[in-house]
């Protein structure tokens, strides 16, 4: 466990059009060890998917620019290798599960052929056609689909089954890292539970590291080891599952997120949403990005963007904890 599998440091991504510049990801840093699961939570448009696409170098070339930062995977910098080498990494070492299983499958290919695609593309062990077919059947059974259905087309599967196929495709090559981009949003709750427990099981069986992107704290609680809360392109709180769910100190946004979940024990007539909207990513506020919506906003928050404060495994980016015991701005010293 010396070198982390994935090291993202100060990643900055913008989407640039003629009219405006969208600051999608602002200096995100995190690390992921082999076999661990990192959850990224946040609202729509917080930059979760952009981060994921940047790791695979799949950002839309037309308008996305990586301004700065580095991504290191398995000891290599993702931005320094050629497209050819990147194609080798995609699917073989890092694979992605897409948000919407309804559209992530090619309608004119049988599911078996689609799963076989990445096996054919990354045929390291020199498998023959028969062995590939066998592996396809294996993977299908692994995700709980009878192997006899491999000759069927995507439209013959239900939504939950399609998502299983998408997962099977991602797992076919035993990747080191699996990026799941809201894998269960398109599914209903019962199927969601099935798919999640299946993914956790598979992850344990295969030792795959995973980045779980979601806006559902329940999913995070169920599957993750570490959690990063993303707001307006920044990780504003980061820690182990315990730090985030049972810890004492929290970023006001995280408190707000938890407050937005209905509590079954308290009989409350209304939910407690976070007031206001995400700041316009084309014109982020001065100081802390959360300050316009923050219930504890102080004068300093409107002027100075807070540093990341560290307390053991727990990191918070908020002025509230500037003077709280145990939190120290170690990030600064390191520079």
């Amino acid at each position, binding site marked *: 466990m010396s070198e982390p599998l994935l090291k993202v440091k100060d990643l900055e991504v913008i989407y640039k059009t003629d009219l405006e510049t969208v600051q999608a990801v602002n200096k995100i840093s995190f690390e992921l060890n082999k076999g661990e699961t990192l959850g990224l939570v946040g609202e729509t448009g917080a930059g979760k998917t952009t981060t994921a696409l940047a790791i*695979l170098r*799949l950002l839309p070339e*037309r308008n996305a620019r990586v301004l700065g930062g580095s991504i290191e995977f398995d000891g290599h910098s993702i931005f320094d290798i050629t497209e050819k080498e990147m*194609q*080798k*990494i*995609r*699917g*073989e070492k890092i*694979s*992605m599960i*897409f*948000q*919407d299983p309804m*559209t*992530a*499958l*090619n*309608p*004119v*290919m049988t599911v078996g052929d689609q799963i076989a*695609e*990445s096996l054919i*593309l*990354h045929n390291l062990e020199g498998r*023959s*056609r*028969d062995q590939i077919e066998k592996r396809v059947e294996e993977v299908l059974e692994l995700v709980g689909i009878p192997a*006899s*259905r491999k*000759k*069927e*087309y995507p*439209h013959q599967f239900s939504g939950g089954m399609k998502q299983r196929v*998408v997962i099977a*495709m*991602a797992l076919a*090559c035993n990747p080191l890292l699996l990026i799941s981009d809201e894998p269960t949003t398109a599914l209903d709750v019962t199927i969601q539970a099935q798919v999640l427990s299946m993914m956790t099981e598979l992850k344990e069986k295969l030792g795959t590291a995973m980045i779980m992107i979601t806006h559902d704290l329940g999913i995070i609680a169920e599957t993750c080891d570490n959690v990063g809360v993303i707001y307006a392109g920044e990780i504003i709180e980061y820690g182990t599952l315990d730090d985030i769910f049972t810890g004492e100190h929290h970023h006001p946004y995280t408190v707000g997120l938890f407050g937005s979940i209905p509590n079954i024990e308290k009989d409350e007539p209304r939910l407690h949403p976070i007031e206001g909207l995400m700041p316009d990513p084309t014109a982020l506020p001065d100081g802390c990005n959360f300050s316009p919506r923050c219930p504890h906003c102080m004068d300093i928050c409107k002027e100075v963007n807070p540093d990341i404060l560290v307390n053991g495994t727990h990191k918070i980016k908020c002025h509230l904890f500037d003077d709280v015991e145990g939190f120290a701005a170690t990030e600064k010293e390191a520079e």
Partner: protein
Amino acid sequence: MDNNTAAVKAEVPQTPQKKKSKKNRQGKEIWRRYKKSTPAMIGFWLMIIVIAMAVFADVICPYSDCIKQDIMNRLQGPSMAHWFGTDEYGRDEFARIVHGSRSSLWIGVSSSVFSMAIGGFLGAIAAYYGKAVDNIIMRITDVVMTVPPILLSLAVVAALGASMTNLLIALTVSCTPGMIRLVRSVVIGLTDEEYVEAAKSYGASDLRIIFRYIVPNAMGPIIVTLTMNIASMILSASGLSYLGMGIQPPSPEWGSLLSDAESFMFTAPYLLYFPGIFIVIAALSFNLVGDGISDAFDPKLKD
């Protein structure tokens, strides 16, 4: 059940034959779906008849029949001796139609297929790569499209000289821009699909994505346009023949048969009917087959 037996069958042969048997299986599957549609089957048999006519023209009647003039028997109506009557020089109309099918079909099919190949390639590249590549290809296409197709063909034939090959080139050139536009628009829609992004995410190269993901999904509209083009190319060829730029007399060709008959429209209307009917049959059969194929290729319409 069905799937299992197919799988067992496919696993029996050794590796070299393996690929073939897989292709076969897919072909059979498509054929099975194709057979279910009655219009498609009618189109299929009509197409077979028209093609057979072109292939076995010499067996049906010797070529000399269609150029042998018999001035005593000019403009005879249909009879046992001359099934479709005779034209202004007393040539047997039936023989001329049978032999005319060769050049008409050849011109219609090959110019459409060539324009599909060229247009498909350029259109797909323009759409997939976008930016400068797209701009260059599409602006050239725009320029070519500003010239009316018949003038364009005329210009090409005038520059290269009248012959079968040059006629083909002329028709292909005039037909390609439309194909480029069609393919480009279809492909642009498809490149935004999530399954294309998913394919990228597991490391597929651009070429593989174009040929495995985009082309098969774009096949439906392209095949339908192709078959429509076949019919309109037969007609355009006849227009050029009429202007003396296409097939040179006395060789028969459906379009020129039709334009020759024009002056006898009132005295011998059958000279108009028969080539017209055959052009319609050929065009209709290709259209029906095209529709049938594009449906058979679409797995969503299966069963």
